[in-house]
């Protein structure tokens, strides 16, 4: 079930209503049941494997806790061994995907494998490090691992954060549906309208020059952001319908004025996860090695982020580029901040320059993320500077109708950025808490009209067949 499919929205509505009717003490069991029902629509076999892994992780964490309490030598290896096993399980599927037949003996990639293995690993490490007591209810733990709004594409919620919310208390359904509507709009109105032009350019990289390549260079980051943050919005909104608040994944990433700031704003649940479970242990182990230790830890961490998406040369280059940017940023950070403190007049221009460089560095790395192969990425980057006259999209065979959609997508994106910039400051939202009834009701009717207008726009201009979410395949 795709998150934008009407059948998914119907399923979600039915489950959300049933969860509200359900008694609080049965709600975790209910969530578990519907999560597995959702998972089984993709593959019953993969659901059985998920159940098996969940049970094994549950017992392992209890054993890790028991052996630590008894000061047994086994406490040192039980947790790490389980983590190595889970990482190998994930890597095996990623390697299997490299084979032309898509997998060992035709095995398909289990839905959300990259997300649920990370959830299991963080749980075992948290218990191993004594950060979290082992969960004693198998039912609650299984509901956490399989929670269907988050299994397709995250966000990667930490076990302590999720388990503390059980049994869930459903909050306002309006807030959940508003978040889902925002996600659908980002996906259907922005990402899917920007997509066709970008796909066209990437499919014809070798024959195009100049302008269309710049278009794809600048627009792909926006498409990826609208697509992935839209997916996250739907996941968070759906979670909210069941009374589960998930972690945010994005915080206006393209306003970042340096590359480490970008990574504090982009795919935050993954970055924080790797920060805690990969970077910090590595950095602790190499802390006496000075700058070399720092560079090695950053590189391993960023290559892991790249390869988490899949084992391909493009994702590797993506990770290596970001490690180079981050190492340069970390090694010069103190000097830069001293300079700007001593020269306050440079602070503003410095921020603008930082923003400009950061966006271009991010867009450059994303070319390798998006291109079908490293060669195609290189061709695009060379073609940007080609002396040949710029090609026209229409002349290359791109449908003119899609150009209108592209313009709409760009306008939609501008609206999205403006909304994220000014929405928090708008006094409008406060009107709904106003004591005067007619003010309150004017607010409700204006919001309903706006929603209906948005829906109509989406039906007229939104793409007829939604493209799959980019992040749903990882």
């Amino acid at each position, binding site marked *: 079930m795709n998150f934008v499919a009407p059948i998914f929205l119907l399923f979600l509505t039915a489950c959300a209503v049933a969860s509200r009717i359900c008694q609080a003490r049965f709600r975790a069991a209910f969530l578990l049941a519907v999560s597995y029902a959702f998972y089984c629509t993709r593959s019953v076999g993969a659901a059985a494997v998920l159940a098996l892994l969940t049970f094994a992780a549950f017992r392992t964490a209890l054993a890790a806790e028991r052996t630590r309490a008894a000061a047994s030598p086994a406490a040192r290896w039980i947790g790490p061994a389980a983590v190595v096993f889970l990482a190998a399980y994930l890597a095996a599927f990623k390697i299997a995907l490299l084979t032309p037949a898509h997998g060992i003996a035709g095995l398909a990639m289990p839905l959300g494998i990259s997300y649920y293995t990370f959830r299991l690993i963080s749980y075992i490490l948290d218990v*191993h*490090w*004594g*950060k979290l007591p082992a969960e004693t209810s198998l039912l609650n733990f299984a509901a956490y691992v399989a929670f269907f709004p988050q299994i397709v594409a995250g966000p990667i919620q930490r076990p302590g954060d999720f388990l503390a919310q059980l049994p869930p208390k459903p909050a306002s359904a309006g807030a959940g549906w508003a978040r889902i509507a925002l996600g659908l709009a980002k996906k259907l109105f922005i990402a899917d309208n920007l997509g066709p032009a970008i796909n066209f350019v990437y499919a014809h990289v070798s024959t195009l020059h100049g302008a269309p390549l710049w278009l794809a260079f600048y627009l792909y980051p926006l498409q990826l952001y609208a697509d992935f943050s839209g997916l996250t919005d739907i996941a968070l909104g759906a979670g909210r319908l069941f009374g589960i608040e998930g972690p945010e994944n994005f915080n206006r990433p393209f306003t970042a004025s340096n590359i*480490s700031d970008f990574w*504090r704003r982009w795919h935050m649940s993954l970055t924080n996860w790797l*920060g*805690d479970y990969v*970077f*910090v*242990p590595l*950095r*602790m*182990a190499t*802390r006496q090695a000075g700058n070399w230790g*720092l560079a090695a830890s*950053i590189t391993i961490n960023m290559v892991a982020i790249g390869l988490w998406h899949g084992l391909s040369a493009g994702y590797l280059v993506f990770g290596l580029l970001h490690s180079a940017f981050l190492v340069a940023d*970390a090694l010069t950070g*103190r000097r830069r*901040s*001293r300079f700007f*403190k001593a020269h306050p007049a440079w602070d503003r221009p410095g921020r603008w320059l930082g923003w400009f460089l950061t966006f271009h560095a991010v867009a450059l790395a994303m070319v390798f993320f998006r291109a079908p192969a490293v060669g195609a990425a290189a061709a695009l980057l060379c073609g940007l500077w080609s002396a040949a006259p710029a090609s026209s999209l229409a002349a290359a065979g791109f449908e003119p109708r899609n150009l209108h959609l592209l313009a709409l997508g760009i306008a939609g994106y501008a609206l999205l950025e403006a909304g994220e910039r000014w929405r928090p400051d708008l006094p409008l939202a406060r009107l709904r808490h106003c004591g005067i009834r007619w003010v309150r009701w004017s607010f409700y009717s204006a919001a309903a009209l706006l929603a209906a207008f948005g829906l109509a726009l989406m039906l007229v201009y939104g793409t007829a067949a939604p493209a799959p979410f980019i992040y749903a395949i990882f």
Partner: protein
Amino acid sequence: MADTWQHMQHVFRDIFDDEALDLQPETTAAGVEGWDSLTHIDLIVALEREFKIKFTTAEVTRLKNVGELAALIDKKLPVRP
């Protein structure tokens, strides 16, 4: 304890390059600008040097706020006569 706190404040101000930084036991990473996983380890290394102690990865990941960090440092310091 007051002594530990003063030394910690000094190290924090140096790492975050902020002479006005005022530590409270309930201060967390979210409340200090620039405190991310990178600077967190810089901070840990600087504290190890300042107090001549060693932290483990598990200890470093378990900390919830500055108060817990101070308590951990005090636990590691040799008892003074």
